[in-house]
């Protein structure tokens, strides 16, 4: 029996000749990578400066100019009325609005309806107390009047409906008892 001990005694092995224990490195088994929650990455870019348009109010409201005349709509809530303005050489402005049933309906009960005068070609002239110096100012004022008339008209309709509702006969237990006792 050549035991390991005897072998070592008979044939001593030099330290240098000794073989270092082999360390086996085996590739790891495939491990499925769990998807990490994606990080929100802000992609920065150069700031896009948006220049503010420096345009007069009439242009902002969609009006256009042809010579000394301006055309566009008076827009109030969901209503739109065709409008026109003329500028005289002296700088005075006259405002006009297209006549129509829709306009008459909302303006009929407004106290400034009498300031709208009939002119040829279906236009109504908006009479101002003083000179209108620019189209934008006139437009702001006429829009405000139309909006006020619209609101008043709407409220009156609502009040009429409420009144009608209140006039409806009411039957309740209390009134029934009251009638019996009375």
């Amino acid at each position, binding site marked *: 029996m050549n035991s390991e001990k005897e072998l070592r005694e008979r044939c001593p092995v030099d330290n240098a000749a000794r073989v270092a224990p082999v360390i086996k490195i085996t590739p790891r088994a495939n491990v499925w990578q769990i998807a990490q929650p994606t990080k929100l990455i802000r992609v920065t870019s150069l700031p896009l400066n948006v220049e*503010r*348009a*420096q*345009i*007069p*109010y009439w*242009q*902002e*409201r969609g009006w256009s100019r042809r010579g000394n005349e301006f055309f566009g709509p008076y*827009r*109030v*809530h969901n209503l739109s009325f065709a409008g026109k303005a003329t500028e005289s050489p002296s700088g005075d402005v006259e405002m006009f609005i297209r006549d129509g049933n829709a306009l008459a309906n909302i303006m009929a009960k407004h106290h*400034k309806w*009498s*300031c709208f005068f009939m002119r040829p070609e279906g236009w109504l002239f*908006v*009479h*101002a*107390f*003083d000179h*209108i*110096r*620019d189209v*934008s*100012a*006139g437009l*702001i*004022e*006429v*829009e*405000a*009047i*139309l*909006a*006020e008339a619209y609101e008043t008209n709407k409220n009156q309709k609502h009040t009429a409906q409420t009144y009608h509702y209140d006039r409806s006969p009411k039957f309740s237990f209390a009134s029934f008892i009251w009638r019996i006792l009375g």
Partner: protein
Amino acid sequence: MNTKIIEQELRPLMTQERQTMALQVERNGVMKKVAAVIAETGELFDLEIGPGTTCRDVLARMGKEGTHIVSVGKGADTLSSDDNVYQAVQDGGKLYIATPVEVGGD
């Protein structure tokens, strides 16, 4: 005695409290940034207004007091000189500075 206490102890405290409140208002960004537009020309001015700012204040700051009025536009009523602009306009909104027009009269 009570008056003395109020004068000596409470009044300075109230002033301090009000000062702190004013600072808080400033830090919390209660100031509104609005663009004032000259309706006639479209010229823009950036304004920063605090609570209680009136039309008169705005017009005076822009050198238009007495000759112009303030409106929020788009069908809104024109504001009178004592009206509170701060309440009338939203932060980032627009104010229109226009010449006064009154429809009607003789």
